[in-house]
Structures are given as structure tokens and as C-alpha cells.
């Protein structure tokens, strides 16, 4: 790895996780002082949502459910989210038959601008990304597998559009969103509701 790429990786890491090295910090301070008066700076800080969130989503981008971690980025109300879910179910009551198993991994870039400067906890909930799906089809008692054409590993394009409650000081957060999923085989008009903790 060259020095330049190492520096770029460090810069991305620092932006993602809040730490910044001297040059970046100075540049940010300069940008802030140019755009905001001191009082507005404080209000601007208040408007920034908590940087981390862990939440459970029923249905949504994880298809049936998902538990996700989201990291807010320190600029433009952007964030990145990664989650996962595991579901297994016996479709045959006969001994020796194998369960249907579904694993999903939603990976999304999110944008949550405040809907009003007066109430910064109320935000739009916009996102786009992909949901990795893996379906292991069920088997009968002789081990014959019964799965559709889409069984196995697949990727669905995923979008999010809805409302989000995300208090700047952290604490309880929830969201309600339209979360369509798209595969080559078709579109799934889907929705989700989530609740969790921001910190």
C-alpha cells in the first residue's frame, strides 16, 4: 500500500468514526467558521443526530426482520447501515427433513435530513443499497431439495423512503418506511418499522 492510499484510508476511517487528524480538523473548523455564526454553530451541533444507532426492524430491508448497526457520518446527514437476519423453519413434519433457511444482510447508505430546524429529531428516512439474500431450500426426508429458481445466493437492490425519529441527544429511535426490494425476477413493494437505541 502506498503512502497516499494509506492516508486516504485513514481519512475515510477518521470521517466514519469521528476521529480526525490535524489537517482535516483545521479544514473542518475553517468550513464551519465560514458558514455559521457562533450561536448557529451551537444550534447546528444540537441538530446533528447521535452518531450510532442499533435497531431492530420488522420486515423492511432485511425482508422478514433485521438487526442493524448504523453509523452516522459527520456531514450532510449521511450514514451507513449494515445488518443481518437469520430465519429457519421446518416445512415438513417428517423426520429427517431439512428446514428452509433464509439469511439476509441489508447494506445501505442512508440520508436523514431534519424535516424542520425547530424539531431536529424528526427526520426524513431515505436510503439505497443492497440486500444480500441466501435461501437454503427445505429438503424432504430423503434429502431431496425443493427450492425455486431464486433459491441460493442472490442480491436485491434495496431502497428506503419514510420517516425517522432520531433525537440529537440519542436514546430511543424509531422509523417507518416504504422499503421496496428489486431483483431480476421482479419488484417486492415492501415496508418496515424499526425501533432501537441511538447513542
Amino acid at each position, binding site marked *: 500500500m502506498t503512502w497516499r492510499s494509506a492516508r486516504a484510508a485513514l481519512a475515510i476511517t477518521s470521517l466514519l468514526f469521528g476521529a480526525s487528524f490535524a489537517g482535516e480538523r483545521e479544514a473542518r473548523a475553517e468550513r464551519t467558521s465560514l458558514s455559521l455564526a457562533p450561536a448557529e454553530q451551537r444550534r447546528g451541533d444540537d441538530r446533528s443526530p447521535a452518531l450510532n444507532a442499533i435497531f431492530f426492524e420488522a420486515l423492511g430491508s432485511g425482508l422478514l426482520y433485521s438487526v442493524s448497526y448504523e453509523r452516522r457520518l459527520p456531514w450532510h446527514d449521511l450514514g451507513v447501515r449494515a445488518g443481518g437476519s437469520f430465519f429457519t423453519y421446518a*416445512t*415438513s413434519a417428517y423426520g429427517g*427433513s431439512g428446514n428452509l433457511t433464509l439469511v439476509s444482510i441489508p447494506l445501505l447508505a442512508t440520508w436523514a435530513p431534519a424535516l424542520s430546524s425547530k424539531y431536529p429529531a424528526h427526520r426524513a428516512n431515505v436510503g439505497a443499497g443492497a440486500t444480500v439474500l441466501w435461501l437454503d431450500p427445505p429438503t*424432504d426426508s*430423503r434429502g*431431496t431439495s*425443493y427450492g*425455486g429458481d*431464486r*433459491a441460493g445466493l442472490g442480491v436485491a437492490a434495496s431502497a428506503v423512503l419514510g420517516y425517522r425519529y432520531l433525537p440529537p441527544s440519542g436514546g430511543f429511535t424509531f422509523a417507518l418506511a416504504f422499503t421496496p426490494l428489486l431483483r431480476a425476477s421482479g419488484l417486492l413493494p415492501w415496508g418496515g418499522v424499526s425501533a432501537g437505541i441511538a447513542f
Partner: protein
Amino acid sequence: MPRPLPAIALLALLGLGALACDALADVALEAGDFAGARADVHCDRRWVDDGGAPAAFCQELIATVAAAEFSDDCRAKHMATAGPGRCPRERVIGGCRLWRDNQDDSLVFDWYYDVTALPDGGPLDAEAFDSRTDHAGLPAVCADRSRYEEGAEVVAP
């Protein structure tokens, strides 16, 4: 002491609960369909293990989430031959599409065969098979409510 819920409210709650269960089942089926959980499966009643009674038809389920259970049922209840995919179409006369409302919205067909010969043309003892029919007799078989309670319609292969 809390007042007991009036019976009507309790019934309403039960009704809502049942509706919620149905809705959840529908949602799970939609999700399973999107992920690829639906499959086709057939139970060929012509070819049975020892103790089974051969019949001149094959039943297929299209786009079901219960394919594994259907396959196991086929062997356990009829000692017949189950497998993934649709019924074979060689030597088929025609079929009955059952008007059965399956919970997973899968379609059910019974395909009837000419059992006077094997699929490769070899000799076969037709008398050994139950439910034998021919082109002319198929509409009556499909319309037989003692056989298909919910009704069925004739379909071409």
C-alpha cells in the same frame, strides 16, 4: 376488581387476532416467494412401492412452499414416487385443475395417463391401475364431486 371484557369485545379481539395471523402468513409467503422458497413438486401415483395401489394419474403442485411435506406425504400415504418439478407429460391424456384454495396460493393439477403402455412404449398391465380414464371420460372425472370436493376443470397437457 377489573371489569371482564364484554363477550363481543373478546370476539372482536379474537377476530382481529385471526386476521393478523392471516396477514402475517401472507407477508411471510410474499417474503419467501421473493427469496425463492416456492417450488414445483409432483407425486406420480403410477409407480408405487410394495403395498401401494397404483393409480393412473400424477398430482402436481405449482409454486408451493410446502413441497418437502407434499413429497413426504406422497411416499408415506400412497407409497408413490415423488420428485421436484412437474409431472411427466409422456402418455398424458389430460388433466384436472383443482379449484382448491391452498393457503400458499399454489395450483394443483391431476394429470391422467394412458396406462396401456409404459412411457417408452413397453407393455403394461392397465388393469392394475385405479382411476383409469380416457379422453372421453376425463370431463366426468374432473366433474366428479366425490373425487374433487371443491370442483375441478379439464385442462389440456
